[in-house]
């Protein structure tokens, strides 16, 4: 077979691209995924609320609503197969006065039309029993039991790892800069920004050197480029939509507050967002946010004093005991918004080109359903789908000491002594886990943080950063001065004494 020739090329290694890659890897196809960053999930998929929404708060006729309900079901199955921790915690949409009740009932009706199961209105008595820290001002709530939480980046990494196991090739540091029609296929021009040698199981580099360009040819191209999907689409000559980032600032609280709430708590939604929430996360830390602010700069991930005070105010309205002093981390994410709904379609103008764009919230939840829809569109466009004899749907799960009981920890350490070498004291992460993360594809300090939680606790890497840098140096064989937080330009050590 020709080198760099594929049946399907996927542009973008976020939750959308990774889900499509894994779904396609069931079939006898040659598939490539191209990602411009040094690691997967460094786009929108790393900074969101991590909620697997039940499907509430969506217009009943919207595509995103339908895909969300379906995605909620599918996510459970996939998480189970891949060994990703999914917790069904349920959500409450709360109201503070009778004037708000009609809107709450409307949300319930709309969600029921979409097929969201198990919804019920709960009263003050129920709330006292099930959500004791809730503000006394709340009079009732809509309870949606199927809301869940998941680690969004771990989901991406594990989907990708499983896709690779089933034959998908992934190239990191590969930015698509040109798309041209050729007879029978599309040609992708790619700028290579990372010259790392092929290494590790999960992801490979094309072997091309940093700063160079290379070409990929594919019969079909799926654009899952998140915030940049409009620009990628324009490369192919389709420029009838624009992506406007909508920023959301989020603030994480100390793990000591893990049991602040039993559910995810929402106010009534506004026109552009679901409002400021009190969120549970799969790592245990509660989170408050996000804000919703239209901005112009797709690279602006800054947080603001204003965002902080808005979020604290909004969260305290529902859970009054929240204290700004419990904040241990914060970040901002940008929702890739193109109008009110997802844009998932074949482009007649460019045969073989599929857009999966405008994947705003609930894009994390919808991802597996989005993937099925993308595959369906590929089929309609003429892609022949023949199932493989062997699709390896399971994945050997990663070990996380912090998630296990002491009895299990004891066994692990006995089996492999380096589980007993604690690197990160706040989150209890061992040297073995850091090494495993690198072997599974981590290349940066952030990549290690997302996979293991080392550096993500209350001391923010004050204790473990040096140790992690040394392990990276050993495992990857790169000098200290080339170790980065999240890719080129984010080096952490600027000089080494001879």
């Amino acid at each position: 077979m020709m080198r760099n020739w594929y049946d399907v090329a996927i542009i973008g290694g976020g939750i959308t691209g990774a889900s499509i890659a894994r779904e396609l890897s069931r079939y006898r196809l040659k598939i490539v995924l191209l990602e411009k960053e040094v690691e997967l999930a460094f786009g929108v998929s790393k900074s969101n609320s991590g909620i697997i929404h039940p499907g509430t708060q969506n217009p009943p006729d919207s595509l995103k609503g339908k895909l969300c309900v379906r995605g909620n079901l599918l996510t459970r199955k996939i998480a189970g197969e891949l060994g990703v921790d999914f917790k069904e915690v349920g959500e409450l949409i709360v109201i503070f006065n009778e004037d708000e009740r009609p809107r709450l009932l409307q949300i319930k009706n709309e969600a029921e039309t979409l097929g969201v199961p198990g919804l019920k209105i709960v009263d003050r008595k129920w709330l006292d029993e099930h959500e004791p820290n809730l503000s006394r001002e709340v009079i009732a709530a809509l309870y949606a039991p199927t809301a869940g939480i998941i680690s969004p980046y771990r989901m991406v990494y594990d989907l990708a790892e499983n896709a690779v196991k089933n034959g998908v090739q992934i190239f990191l540091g590969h930015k698509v800069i040109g798309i041209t029609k050729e007879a029978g296929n599309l040609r992708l021009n790619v700028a290579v920004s990372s010259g790392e040698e092929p290494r590790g199981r999960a992801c490979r580099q094309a072997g091309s050197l940093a700063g160079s360009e290379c070409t990929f040819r594919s019969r079909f191209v799926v654009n899952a480029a998140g915030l940049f999907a409009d620009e990628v689409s324009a490369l192919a000559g389709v420029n009838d939509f624009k992506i406007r980032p909508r920023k959301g600032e989020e603030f994480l609280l100390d793990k000591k507050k893990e049991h602040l709430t039993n559910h995810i708590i929402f106010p009534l939604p506004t026109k552009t967002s679901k409002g400021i929430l009190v969120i549970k996360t799969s790592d245990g830390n509660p989170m408050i946010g996000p804000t919703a602010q239209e901005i112009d700069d797709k690279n602006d991930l800054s947080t603001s004093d204003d965002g902080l005070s808005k979020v604290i105010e909004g969260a305290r309205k529902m859970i009054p005991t929240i204290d700004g002093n419990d904040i241990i981390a914060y970040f901002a994410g940008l929702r890739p918004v193109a109008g009110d709904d997802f844009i998932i379609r074949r482009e007649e103008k460019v045969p073989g080109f599929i857009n999966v764009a405008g994947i705003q919230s609930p894009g994390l939840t919808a991802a597996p359903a989005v993937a099925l829809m993308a595959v369906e569109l590929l089929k309609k466009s003429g892609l022949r789908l023949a199932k493989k004899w062997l699709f390896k749907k399971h994945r050997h799960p990663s070990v996380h000491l912090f998630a296990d009981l002491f009895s299990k920890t004891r066994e692990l350490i006995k089996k492999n002594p380096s589980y007993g070498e604690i690197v990160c004291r706040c989150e209890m992460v061992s040297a073995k886990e850091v090494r495993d993360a690198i072997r599974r594809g981590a290349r940066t300090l952030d990549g290690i943080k997302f996979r293991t939680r080392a550096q993500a606790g209350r001391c923010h890497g004050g204790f473990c950063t040096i140790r992690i840098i040394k392990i990276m140096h050993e495992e990857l064989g790169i000098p200290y001065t080339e170790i980065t937080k999240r890719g080129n330009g984010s080096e952490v050590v600027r000089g080494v004494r001879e």
Partner: protein
Amino acid sequence: MENRNNVKERELVVVGGGPAGMAAALSAYENGVRDILLIERDQYLGGILNQCIHPGFGLRYFRENLTGPEYADRFIKKISAVPSIEISLKSYAVNLTAGRYLAYIKPGKMEEVKAKAIIMATGCRERTREMVHIAGTRPAGIYPAGLAQKMINLEGWLPGREVVIVGSGDIGLIMARRFTLEGAKVKAVIEIQKTSRGLIRNVVQCLEDFGIPLYFSHKISRIHGRDRVEKVEVVEVDDSFNEKPQTRFEITCDTVLMSVGLIPENELIELAGVAIDKKTNTPVSAEVNKTSVPGIFVCGNSFKIYDLVDGVTYDSAKAGKMAAEYLKGLK
């Protein structure tokens, strides 16, 4: 849960092998305790002193001007000579119960002991940029000052070339001098209060002698830079810490060092049900080294933040004595 088989019982367990833990263990021995286990998560004793290669330690206790490692070394020699004190390095305490069952992890093993008395000397951690809520981006180049100190002094790595330091506590001041001596440019120290929290000798020797500007009543209001720090916005504040917007100016730099205070490390005793003051993260206590749970003592920087190590040594010796008396009382 509290009555487990096969768990070894020890008279006294000391957690943390910094100056506090060593002084406490030695004094417990001197006061008659003959079965002491000292556990330390690092591969060597000495705690934070190992990275403090500057002089200024022991002026009171030894009447000499020692460096941190020299000060630590005197205790390491002494403690290593006492056979009744078992030292377990690379041992990380992970759980403590009110019944004084202590679990710790070391390479290849997870151990559990039941201590008749326990002294926690786990030191402190640094407050972070997140705890003081500085707005802006989150690029590489923002370090707690103690981490930068460890990088330079113990690893020989230079974390940055153009530095702005937030906070004028002693660690920040000492790091200003350290970076300058390593050839980096320290552009400013920004202090939100009207005076320095550090020792006067450090303000003089670490800033004034090198001509490093110190801005009182100023704060960093925003950090800029996508991948690595590019600049910071600085603004003057009034007496109630409100920003005076017209005074805003920028400093270009590639590094921001945070020296905004230390927090006692007391998460383990919190698990054991010891009452903790939420504001200071220290044990609620009427008397030095005591906690709300009998038989659990806390000393050194985990009891309260000390400016000088000499005070740590004096007070921690009292903790050793208290534990010895407590054990005598049990008999």
